[in-house]
């Protein structure tokens, strides 16, 4: 009856439409699944996907959750464009937070405008250093960065546990495993008096614009794209693939580290064992949902932020388990990859049965 026909050229319309189709299929499947196990499926999906968008008091929360996703996904997307598969952004995110917190603990008794920038630089350096290990192993020994970056994530998380339970434990913290609260000079200012939205949110949007400019308008961005698409052509054009590998991993690690520091110095205000919430992994979905394009990533991060905020709403209103958020995110990635086929193929009605 139906058959797949290869398109002569990849469809531009489907390139942008298929993420929307994937979102629609995710909502439909979620509704059916939760309906089948005894929940009010329609209410659950509405709570997750619609409520966060129509209740203005949730918008600040959306922005705060989207900001780290944007930053991390930008770094990942740049790498993915170059065929460098860093999936350990979570570890780089944690190491960035740890490095920035180190600066915070050292400067705890000081005040000054320079403290936050110093923490941010330390965050970038921490994330980049953690991504430098997979880069070194890949360039020197051809070890897959997929494995090394992922495994280093667990090392980073264990290191965080060690620090907050050991040397960095707050002496006045009633033995809770957490660091001291950051001082006001160490905490991100809000964009407006009394708002939850910290300066990291507009910064994430600015970084997306910078990434767009670099990728599409500079020779450095061209190098990233050409190394990913056609390595032999890149070498023919005089581009050094190893240098690109180094650059994209350092940039990706740096962005994840910065996101980690902003999260520590913003919503958390300290480091605790609950700090790694999986933004580094969710950002992989964001990068693909955003079609690896910086502008797309801003919108994709908002969609994923909606599932986080909506997941919390659904827990209280529909009594959905907290794992539901993860399930919806996974469904989204699944449908996203599945609908990708529509870009190069189309479904056609077969005139003559074979």
């Amino acid at each position: 009856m139906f058959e797949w026909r290869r398109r002569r050229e990849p469809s531009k319309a489907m390139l942008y439409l298929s993420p929307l189709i994937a979102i629609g299929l995710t909502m439909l499947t979620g509704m059916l699944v939760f309906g089948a196990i005894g929940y009010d499926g329609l209410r659950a999906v509405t709570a997750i996907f619609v409520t966060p968008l129509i209740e203005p008091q949730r918008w600040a929360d959306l922005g705060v959750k989207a900001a780290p996703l944007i930053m991390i996904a930008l770094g990942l997307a740049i790498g993915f464009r170059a065929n460098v598969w860093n999936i350990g952004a979570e570890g780089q995110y944690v190491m960035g937070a740890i490095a920035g917190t180190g600066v915070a603990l050292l400067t705890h008794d000081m005040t000054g405008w320079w403290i936050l920038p110093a923490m941010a630089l330390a965050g970038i350096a921490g994330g980049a250093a953690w991504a430098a290990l997979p880069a070194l192993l890949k360039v020197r020994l051809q070890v897959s960065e997929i494995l090394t970056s992922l495994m280093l994530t667990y090392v980073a998380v264990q290191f965080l546990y060690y620090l907050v339970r050991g040397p960095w434990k707050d002496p006045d913290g009633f033995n809770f495993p957490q660091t001291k609260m950051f001082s006001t000079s160490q905490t991100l200012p809000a964009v407006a008096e009394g708002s939850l939205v910290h300066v990291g949110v507009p910064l994430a949007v600015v970084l997306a614009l910078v990434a767009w400019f670099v990728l599409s308008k500079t020779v450095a961005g061209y190098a990233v794209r050409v190394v990913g698409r056609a390595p032999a052509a890149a070498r023919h054009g005089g581009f050094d693939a190893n240098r690109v590998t180094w650059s994209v991993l350092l940039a990706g690690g740096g962005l994840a580290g910065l996101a980690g520091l902003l999260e520590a110095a913003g919503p958390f205000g300290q480091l605790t064992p609950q700090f790694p919430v999986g933004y580094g992994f969710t950002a992989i979905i964001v990068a693909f949902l955003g079609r690896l394009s910086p502008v797309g990533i801003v919108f994709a991060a908002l969609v994923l932020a909606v599932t986080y905020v909506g997941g919390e709403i659904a827990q209280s209103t529909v009594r959905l388990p907290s794992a539901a958020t993860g399930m919806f995110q996974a469904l989204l990635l699944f449908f996203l990859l599945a609908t990708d086929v529509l870009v190069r193929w189309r479904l056609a009605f077969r005139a003559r049965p074979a």
Partner: protein
Amino acid sequence: MTQPPDQTAPSRLALAHVSKSFPGVKANQDISLSVRPGEIHALLGENGAGKSTLVKIIYGVQRADEGGISFDGRPVEIASPKAARKLGIGMVFQHFSLFDGMTVLENIALGLDETVPAEELKARIRAILDSYSLPLDPDREVHTLSVGERQRIEIVRCLLQKPKLLIMDEPTSVLTPQEVERLFETLRQIAREGCSILYISHKLHEIKALCEAATILRGGKVVATCDPRIETTRRMAELMIGAELKHLQRPSGGGKAGAARLSVDKLDMPGEPPFGTSLKGVSFSAQAGEILGIAGVAGNGQAELLMALSGEHLAGQPDAIRLDGRPIGLANAGARRAAGLACVPEERNGHAAVPEFTLAENVVLTARHRLPLAPSGLIRQGPVEAYAKDVIARFDVRITGPGALAGSLSGGNLQKFIMGREIGQKPDVLVVAQPTWGVDAGAAAAIRQALVDLAAQGSAIVVISQDLDELLELSDRLCVINEGRLSQARPVAGLKLEEIGLMMGGVHGESHVAEPAHV
């Protein structure tokens, strides 16, 4: 040719009004042709004329939208290649589907529709090899074989099925002249035994030598049928391109060599495992104003030589390669281009160009060193598009504009763009591999003319090609690459085709198998 084919028997293959469309293209329109039993019938046409589509329909890879096929007088539906083989249609493709790491026998067994015990298969293969006097050892691994020998595997694979119609798609594009002659002997014997052959090619002198009938396609339609034994090659070429053929315009007083622009001195480079060819002590020089041809059978180090010259593989010694006397052996591809050495590799998609990028973006790939396209790391869209448009116009690239994806262009069209992109930068030295491979005759003439003109302006040009006719037409001097070694360059004037053939196939050919006496 012992006896004339039986005129009264029904056609072995007859196509009636076959049409096939793809989105945006009518690949075949109302094509009728008939092939008699035992006839060697040429299907002649330029790239994009519809030969491949027609052959795919006959071999069951694609279905015709309209029209009918009959085989031995009976109307047939050919739904798949398997069905085609069952009818008795065999096909030898231009690109072989062989596993390098397996033996000849294993490769043949994998391609058969039925399972045959290894010993029985070996006996049947030997019987075919004997009856056609084909030298080939069933137990050798494919990667040790020459291209001619690999082609024999495909032919044997077809003959095992006792075909009534054998389709040969551009079979001689990678063979030495001696290998071509032997292939023709085999094909004539196959035809004498009653099997028809549909021979697809654009090499006219071969068709004249081999075929008894020819159908000429242009733009998806049959434009003529003729007897190639009496038609002139010039007339057939003009029918094929639908226009008069231009002669190469050589500058008056050409051939006066200037100073050496590119000199290569004892260049050694290990080949990439497992099947790469090592370059061994390659030395040559190309002078201002000359075109140096490098002939050779595919896989003898041509790809490695090009990568070594372009800077994609570095030699390790700075003065193994010199450009106008300056050592550039350690410079990478970008630095060499900036210094004036440009290269065009054989593979277009993914090597010379990025298929997913637009033509304008592909300009940035190799033109940014010599043209002010991105002076401070920022790509200047205006000049990039202007240069792309200029190349498109000057080299007659048939495309909507610089925004078209490189991958959407036909092979010949993309080659015109790539050649134009490099020639337009006026490099001091230009090294090109297979400059007109897959390009139609009219465009090939234009590319060759552009190379001659560039040389006339004082550049040195090195053409690495397997197409001897092209090298003899273009080159001032010619050398041959064989197993990674380069012969002395000799002036083309006065060089005999047989001499070059011997230089090409002499060592590499079939030294390991006893030669039958009749060659």
